[in-house]
């Protein structure tokens, strides 16, 4: 599983930078040039890039948790191996991204601590429940599918270490997606019970998948640093539309129904009705769709989602139970930058 780094990008301070240097930097970036860690960059660029990589790394690490809980329940040898390998990949993505962030000036240990104390965040979609095997299938298909789309554009960004990492990660995400697609197809060509499981899980994940790309674009999106400095190369709404264009017809082709759902506070669906806006506009080639529940989205981001507490408790448990091991391995140097 993986995540877009939809960090808030409000920057006031970059007007302080040397105007000539800033202009040269912006020209370089606008022309498709890459920024390397030792190059001159606006402080705001460094801060945002660090936050973006850190948020992305956090998301990989926390994203390993909901699926990780299903490794021991995977129903065949092949699925067990594939799921373990996938979750392991996500941990590997986290490790690589923490390294990118670390080069921008924050130790891994500091990042892991900020994660468990709630100072920093991770991707919102991991705060939703994963109550059945079909949810594992949907996460790998819908959420990794969303991640591939998003990270495909991030791989054309401006920060060298980050985009190189994106390229490596995206190759693995493609496997995750294939594994997810195969699991969904298996369920949808299985028993009535399996199809029902799949539809219910799809209903739980379609909304979070749409919200995956972040809130609706503000009017000045192109002027904001993330786009202007090519940290991102596509806006949230562009990505969301592309996603619906690809996944709505794909879901329907398997026999799934794209519903608009209401959910209770535990993230379980209380009502589901077919999306009335789901129509192909022949002129634009775009599929219409109902926006995800943005009130719910912001409520979950603020920490009041179905699984925020559970995910953080497990992450904290993991950090704390490992403390003595890190101390032993690092001879007491728990703040050493590389191994925490």
């Amino acid at each position, binding site marked *: 599983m993986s995540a877009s780094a939809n960090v808030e990008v409000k920057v006031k301070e970059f007007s302080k930078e040397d105007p000539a240097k800033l202009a040269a930097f912006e020209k370089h970036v606008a022309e498709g040039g890459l920024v390397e860690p030792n190059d001159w960059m606006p402080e705001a660029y460094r801060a945002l890039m660090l936050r973006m990589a850190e948020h992305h790394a956090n998301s990989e690490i926390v994203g390993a948790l909901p699926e990780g809980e299903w490794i021991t329940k995977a*129903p065949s040898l092949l699925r067990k191996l594939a799921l373990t390998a996938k979750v*392991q990949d996500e941990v590997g993505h986290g490790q690589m991204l923490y390294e990118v962030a670390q080069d921008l000036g924050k130790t891994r240990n500091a990042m892991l601590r900020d994660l468990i104390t709630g100072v920093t965040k991770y991707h919102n979609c991991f705060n939703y429940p994963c109550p059945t095997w079909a949810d594992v299938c949907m996460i790998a298909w819908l959420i990794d599918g969303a991640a591939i789309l998003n990270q495909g554009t991030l791989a054309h960004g401006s920060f060298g270490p980050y985009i190189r990492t994106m390229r490596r990660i995206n190759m693995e995400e493609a496997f995750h997606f294939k594994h997810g697609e195969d699991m969904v197809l298996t369920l949808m060509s299985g028993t009535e019970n*399996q199809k029902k499981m799949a539809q219910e899980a799809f209903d739980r994940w379609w909304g979070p998948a749409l919200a995956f790309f972040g809130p609706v674009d503000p009017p000045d999106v192109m002027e904001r640093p993330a786009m202007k400095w090519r940290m991102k190369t596509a806006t949230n709404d562009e990505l969301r539309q592309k996603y619906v264009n690809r996944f709505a017809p794909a879901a329907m082709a398997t026999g799934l129904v794209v519903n608009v759902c209401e959910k209770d506070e535990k993230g379980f669906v209380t009502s589901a009705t077919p999306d009335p806006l789901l129509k192909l506009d022949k002129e634009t080639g775009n599929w219409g769709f109902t926006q995800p529940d943005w009130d719910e989205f912001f409520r979950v981001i603020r920490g009041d989602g179905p699984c925020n507490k559970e995910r953080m408790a497990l992450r904290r448990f993991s950090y704390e139970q490992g403390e003595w*091991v890190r101390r032993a391995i690092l001879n007491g140097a728990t703040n050493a930058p590389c191994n925490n």
Partner: protein
Amino acid sequence: MSELDKQFHEAIVNVLLCVADDKLFLGHRNSDWTGIAPILEADIAFSSLAQDDIAHAGAFYELINSINGENPDQIAFGRNTSAYRCADIVTKDDEFNWANAIARQFYCNVYEYLRLQRLSNCTWSPLANLAKRIDAEQAIHVDHITTWMEHLGNGTEDSKERMQKALDDYAPYASMMFEAPRGIDTLFEGGILVNEGCLFTAWKDCVDNIVDGTGLTITVEPCTGDGGRTGNHDEDFTRSLNELQEVFNTDPLAAW
């Protein structure tokens, strides 16, 4: 010899189940650490070992399939408690204590390495070949766990104490790895397997040798009584089995 006389089928399947079930459940328990191990790099490495074990188990279930035609997933997921042949150390709850996981891994990995070495000398070539191939990978597992024993034994006072406690806690379970599989004498007498003497003694020499210089001690006794190898499993095993079968059992005939 690639054809195995029918009179040995039952006994050889039993021996293969001992290996496959040990590997399946050790991998099963260890894979549960994926995403929450103490250090990211250790997490990734430990998960690879778990995946190896599950894949190795699969190869042994395939070999069983070549004898009796049973589907490997059905063998792995579809049996009742008493039909599993693993020693219960592999499913002993580690309570997400890394010292427990390392102690369990240490005892089991060295044992597996020696067992596979012996199975490599089997006169039935499909098993000899498989055991040889997997034992080469098992040697890497032993190297890996040896490094952990050295690091944690020689780490801090705290880490040494924790490791010693875990080694002691798991010692009685380690004994039960040496419970003889039913029918193994038939295989010795029939010249299918080679009796190379006491496996426990060989294992004890090997583990003592590894911990030498770490300040850790091994107090495992030879096996007595009946255990997992004859289908007498404890509660931790049953819990692991229930978890393993949870989704599978909702419809054992469905494709997943």
